[in-house]
């Protein structure tokens, strides 16, 4: 008879839900600590609490509607999100030299966050088609263009960190949609070449950046054995990048160059960013294994740690809760990501599977870049930590992401 009283939960993915709720709870605790120092912004925490409730509601609603609806609405949603990105460039409000926010009366939000979800939906719809053959030019080019549009608009704001999540999503979804690995890597070589050039141009002997690229192409060719004309196109693209880019860079004026450097290192000069990173490292390092104790952080207390409640929230975790706290957070994220990829594997509908893969990639990218930034192993790009950092839109969008993942979980048996 006991079974009659058993709570009948819908078939949610429980580990995923636990991870998301746990991270949100930890986020609320740490944001409270980060904003509780004297002289800091009061009332931010209560606001964050309201946002968290909204995020939960958003997740609930999003999970309740069948994903077929999102499938059908993918293109209109994508169009609206592009429109918002254009709007933000035209009439967005700016802070620290970048236009990222749209003001809607009392609401203030970043359309780039919404564009991420819309792009995942659009890509999932495109790839979910049994006739897609990603070896064919006309089948893989359109998704590249759909992704380049939001990428370019967000990069123009400028918001390098967020803009780079678009290519990350695209690559993951190409991969998940079945593009041959060799082709995918070959296609990425011009990007590697450009990146290698920009990274190495200031170093002596930097012109040898071509060597690893050439080696990569040869290896890939040997391993993947793609069609000859594809290899020719890729080699030509690489040659073009290697010859055109240095010329373009040399012909730029000092200020245009500085703009590009600012783009690569958005905090303006590396000393501005370097300062934050050093403070963040001191905060995390001095936390040690056990931490200084909740609400007892010293780096944070005297406000030496900039952006402690937003982008650098992870350093407050490290300082106050120590290695234990930081590892707990890392484990919860790992759980989230692994469950997400598992959902992509078990979902029987192609759209749902692709949707899950894209959403999880976006989350994974953002978590990784943010954490590496706070420990000083990645450039400062101004990405918040999902579910934990202070910020209204970000939290609600995270809620929607989790809600969509649960949506897939609820209907994983449907095809």
């Amino acid at each position, binding site marked *: 008879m006991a079974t009659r009283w058993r709570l009948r939960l819908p078939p949610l993915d429980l580990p995923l839900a636990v991870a998301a709720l746990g991270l949100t709870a930890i986020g609320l605790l740490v944001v409270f600590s980060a904003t509780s120092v004297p002289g800091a912004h009061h009332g931010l925490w209560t606001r964050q609490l309201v946002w968290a409730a909204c995020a939960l509601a958003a997740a609930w609603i999003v999970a309740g509607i069948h994903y077929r609806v999102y499938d059908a609405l993918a293109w209109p949603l994508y169009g609206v999100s592009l429109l918002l990105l254009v709007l933000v460039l035209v009439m967005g409000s700016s802070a620290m030299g970048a236009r990222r926010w749209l003001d809607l009366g009392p609401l203030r939000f970043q359309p780039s966050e919404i564009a991420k979800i819309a792009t995942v939906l659009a890509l999932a719809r495109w790839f979910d088609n049994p006739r897609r053959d990603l070896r064919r030019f006309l089948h893989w080019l359109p998704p590249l263009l759909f992704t380049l549009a939001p990428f370019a608009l967000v990069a123009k704001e400028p918001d390098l960190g967020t803009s780079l999540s678009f290519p990350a999503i695209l690559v993951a979804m190409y991969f998940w949609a079945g593009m041959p690995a060799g082709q995918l890597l070959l296609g990425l070589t011009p990007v590697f070449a450009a990146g290698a050039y920009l990274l190495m141009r200031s170093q002596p002997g930097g012109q040898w950046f071509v060597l690893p690229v050439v080696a990569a192409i040869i290896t890939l060719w040997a391993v993947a054995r793609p069609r000859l004309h594809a290899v020719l196109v890729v080699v030509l693209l690489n040659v073009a990048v290697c010859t055109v880019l240095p010329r373009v860079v040399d012909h730029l004026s000092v200020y245009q160059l500085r703009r590009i450097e600012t783009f690569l290192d958005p905090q303006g000069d590396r000393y501005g960013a370097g300062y934050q990173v050093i403070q963040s490292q001191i905060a995390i390092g001095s936390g040690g294994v056990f931490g200084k104790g909740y609400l007892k952080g010293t780096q944070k207390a005297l406000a030496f740690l900039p952006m402690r409640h937003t982008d650098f929230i992870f350093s407050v975790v490290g300082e106050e809760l120590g290695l234990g706290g930081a590892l707990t957070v890392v484990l919860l994220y790992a759980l989230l990501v692994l469950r997400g990829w598992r959902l992509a*594997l078990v979902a029987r509908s192609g759209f749902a599977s692709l949707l899950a893969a894209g959403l999880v990639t976006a989350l994974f990218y953002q978590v990784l870049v943010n954490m590496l930034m706070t420990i000083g192993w990645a450039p400062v790009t101004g990405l918040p930590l999902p579910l934990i950092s202070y910020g209204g839109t970000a939290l609600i969008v995270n809620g929607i992401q989790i809600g969509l993942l649960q949506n897939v979980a609820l209907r994983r048996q449907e095809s």
Partner: protein
Amino acid sequence: MQPTNQVRDLRQRRHTLLVALALAGFGVVVVGLLVLQVVRQEHYAALSKENWVRLEVLRAPRGAIFDRHGELLADSAPSFSIVFRPFPAESAQRAREVRSTDWLARVSTLVQLDSAEVRSRVRFANRSGQSAVLRRDAPFAVLAAIEESRGELAGIEVQVEPLRHYPNGTLAAHLLGYAGEIGAEELEKRADRGYRPGDLIGRTGVERTYEDLLRGSDGAEYVVVNAMGRRVAQPREVPSRVDPEAGHDLVLTLDLRVQRALEEVLAGVARGAAVALDPRDGGILGLVSRPAFDPNEFSHGLSRARWRVLSEGGANPLLDRAIQGLYPPGSTFKLVSMTAALRGGVAVPQTRLAPCPGGMNYGGRWFACWEKRGHGSLDLVGALQHSCDVFFYQLGLRLGLPRLEQAARDYGLGAPTGVDLPQERGGLVPGAAYYDRRWGAGRWRSGLLLNLAIGQGELLLTPLQLALLTAEVAHDGRPLRPHLVQRVVGRPEFRPPRPAQPGVQLPAASWDAVHQAMELVVTAGTAGAARVPGLRVAGKTGTAQNPHGQDHALFVCYAPAEDPVIALAFVVENSGHGGSVAAPMAGQVLRRLFLPDSLQRPWPRAAAADSARRAARDSAEAPRGD
């Protein structure tokens, strides 16, 4: 759609790869955490407890500015600023000390600053972790007082900073401009160029146009300081020191001797301007605007009241009248009318028009000549010499509006000359399009041509444009681009830009007539006061009618007439006739420059062999040969 078995296999393999990727990614984060929190924990704990890493900005010295002979016009001298430095993390006691009213009261009396202001700057410093300047260029007495009570005033330090210095004070103030502390709005706009609060930025003059070259780039260095704010050691794991890069020095075309001479003759002028151009290349030799200001005032930081006096006072000393003041050119514009007529074939130098009886009737209106008694019968050369209005009324009617307007535009009038000074105004040279817009198409009559031909009516030019016109006439209508910077030290590729206007081409004989007429203006015409013994001067007077008060006096000239090396333009507001007010000033300047006196050598005349005018004519004729 159900995935096929093949797809399922592929996904299974790829899923394994993605899991590996996730584990690797999070693994890197875990390794990073272990390194920071376990391996190097003691190191960071020490840093957070006792020491604190601080960023020191090493300010780049702003480039110096020299005249063409290497005389210093502006440089940066070290000065002492009083700054507040925030405290290391754990010295909470000292942080409390700073918040005490006693500390605030003592500091604000010492630096002579409002205590609320001190409090807000200290708060900003604490929040940003960077030091805040409380007093720039502190006098010695304040420094001594700070030094005395150093141990007792937590966080207060003396710091050496470069301060902009203009050794000649008000001299050449308008063309040099000044540099002031960057404002919040500009800071936001230029955030991507590495400007920081407290940075200097050029606001007017050369300081502004060449801001990007003069500025240089700041360096930076991380230092570890102890709880007392003293420097302890160089930390190993922070980015290494970046040395500041000094800004580029500028060498101007300015000649300090010319500038001084201009400043002196304009010393008593309430409002006016003078410009001296080198007619051979368009370099500005001197540029004066009255009233003037002292750019050094801005380096020390200006009180609000003083700023209001400078920027809003009726005379507006910050206005550079030489490039922003718009004046009717008056009779000096007859140079344009005359050359336009020669070019259009409307007249030759010997052309005689109806004699001047002291005025003429046109369209039922009486147009007076300035000479009420009349000039009688004159040819074109004589008409310019005596500035006969009636002759030019007739010439204007023969010429027509389009040809007159085109000539003015070909000299570069009616549009900014493109000089390397900010906020230059272009003046107004009205054409048919302008009148159509103002009065409606076809609803205006040719009577206005009479006024334009003698430089009245809607015409408006800047003193710089007057000097440009004179310099171009001096060298047979060759177009020039006025410019101030001759050379940028460390930038050999720097070249002053080329002129945008085509200039005015006439046969050499026509130019000779124009030059002869201008010389006659000085020797036997309206500008006798500009005569200099032993020097051939060619000029033209002008008197601009001013509806709001007394007329403006104008005079333009160049010398030596046989091979011009200087072109001058003077505008003196509300002072009377050009011939009696402005022309004597030119004479005084030329005497100072060209006549030997006991104190200084005369200004160098070009040797006859390298006559620029002859060279120009030779090169102009060469292509005609083939």
